[in-house]
């Protein structure tokens, strides 16, 4: 008998109008290579549509990417909506062009981690595994 552990399910999402999706798309491929099941939303998602997809797909992790500078509004809004939908157990992480100064605020608003440019996908995958296992 094979004891099959369910793979970690991740939603990678692009909230807002930012069209820079290189980071998001490469992370999708990298996390799949790490054995995770990854859903990608495509561009221009509202926080509402991201939360909805997260519920539908039953994901363990939501990864948000934004390079336009509107993360301080968009990221916390997604967390808020996930909580409203009873997804308090989901791990929310972010990436993009996020100034260092904004990270404490985002963490206070429920983001578990922010991975800026140059972050290693191995580190991101490791972080996800660690957190999802523990919780």
């Amino acid at each position, binding site marked *: 008998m094979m004891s099959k552990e369910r793979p970690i399910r991740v939603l990678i999402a692009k909230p*807002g*109008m930012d*069209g820079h999706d290189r980071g998001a798309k490469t992370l999708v491929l*990298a996390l799949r290579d790490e054995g995770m099941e990854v859903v990608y939303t495509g561009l221009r998602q509202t926080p509402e549509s991201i939360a909805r997809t997260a519920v539908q797909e039953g994901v363990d992790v939501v990864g948000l990417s934004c390079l*336009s*500078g509107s993360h301080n509004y968009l990221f916390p809004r997604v967390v808020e909506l996930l909580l409203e939908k009873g997804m308090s157990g989901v791990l929310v992480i972010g990436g993009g*062009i996020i100034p260092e100064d904004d990270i404490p605020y985002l963490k206070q608003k429920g983001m578990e981690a922010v991975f800026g440019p140059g972050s290693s996908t191995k580190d991101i995958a490791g972080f996800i595994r660690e957190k999802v296992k523990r919780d």
Partner: protein
Amino acid sequence: MAYSKKELNEIQHEKGSWEKTSLKEELEEKGEWKKDFSTSSGLPVERIYTPIDLEKASWDYNERLGFPGQYPYTRGIDADMYRAQLFRMMQYGGFGTGKTTNERYKYLLAQGLNEISVAMDLPTQIGYDSDNPLANGEVGKQGIAIDSLLDVEGMFEGIPLDKVHIATTANAIGPIFLAWMLAVAEEQGVPAEKLRLNLQNDVLKEFVARGTFILPAEASVKLSCDVVEYCVKNRLDNILPINYCEYHMREAGADVVQGLAFCLANAVAYMNELTRRGIGVDDFPSPWINAVAGLDLFEEICKYRAFRRLWSKMMKERFGATNPRVMALSFRGGSQGSAYTAQQPLNNIVRGTITALVQILGGAQVVEAHSYDEALATPSAESVRVAVRTVQILAHETGIINTTDPLGGSYYIEALTDKIEGKIIKLFEQVEARGGAIKAIESGFISQQIGMSAYKWLKAIESGEKVVVGVNMYKVDEPLSIKIFKVDPALEEKQIERLKKLKAGRDNHKVKNTLKGLKEAVADGVNLVPPILAAVKSYATIGEICGVLREVFGEYQEKV
């Protein structure tokens, strides 16, 4: 290269004996410290190049290079290049409102720039007003928020539009930006023919990189070509109505060959549409390419040279051009933003210097170095000034502008130029075989190709195969030492207030009529620049104008 058979044999002989002696000894003693010495696109690089490499390709000077200002333009599009006229120095900028952007532009012009590229926020670029719920948090970020002509007036207050070159990244909203500029020039008393404008207006690449599309591909191409047609028919020769972009596909991950092959395919799609409209090839607008400058110095320089040659040949042989103007390809360059690192940001000044050097040695007409804080935020006034000074130092202190195409004739440069040209043609033919750019975009072929390259690059960095200083080697663990510029979030509220006031104060009956006129024009299948100009002049907002376009053409649905 006009070596006699005897001379070549002698070189071959010498090379052979060098390989067996000096080289062999050194390799035996030290080996080589890396396995792979290929270019950033993965093109293999030999350890040495000699006349033999060129002779193998029956390399003929007059055929491959010729002289600058003459077909095939490999060495440059002007006969006396930078000795007659220095490249224009440009910066991309703007944030917040018309007022804050106007202040930044005046500051930039005072630093000695002669071209400004208007950065617009995302709601503007994808046709939403600042008060649209979707725009929440985006207003004035990444660029100026433009809701209507009112904001454009504010942006250019006191900036003479017949003297300063204005460029822009308006793509899906190309005709609207043109209309704003025509209207604001008229208010300034500048005749449209004197307006120095460089519109990006290349919407096709938005579907595979950057992502500011609005309408489906066919309708998008129609709008882009409406802009070109309007400018050609009204003889607005100082307006460059379209810039074919390699730039953004490279930022999305495309390699040198992919970037230019896909850019070429897009250019051909627009030119086919112009031909279909009955515009003769010799009347096409002067061709401009918006090309990135990456850090692989020689590969990037060769890219500029190869593409100039390839372009002129294509215009002559495929399109049957006889007018040299449409065969001579101009380049606006810019640093590769994705080569900049968030880690140790001051190192990016060096990357800016190298990428500006690429553009100058590549023979670009507009040169830009990016600001060192670009991987972190919208550039600060201080970091932009360093970027401007970088180009000024290269122009005035280094002597690299003294002679045209100084690298021409290098065995390596010429062999690599030839190789890149051949590879671009091959990939371009693959796109053609898939039915051309529009089909290849819609089928996802181009996105997949770019995505695969981006992933390959990421893996190479993560495995350490490619070194990025400060990222996967020579790292430091210390807090950021530079000040980060932040757009004041209060500007969003201010802009929304301004929009409310505008809507309350304008002649709303007139707005309604011009929007109706636009809708009718779509149904009539005519050029949409005139009705958009009428709408813009009535202070219809971008959301209102694009609302009509969305209603009649539908919206592009991204395939994920």
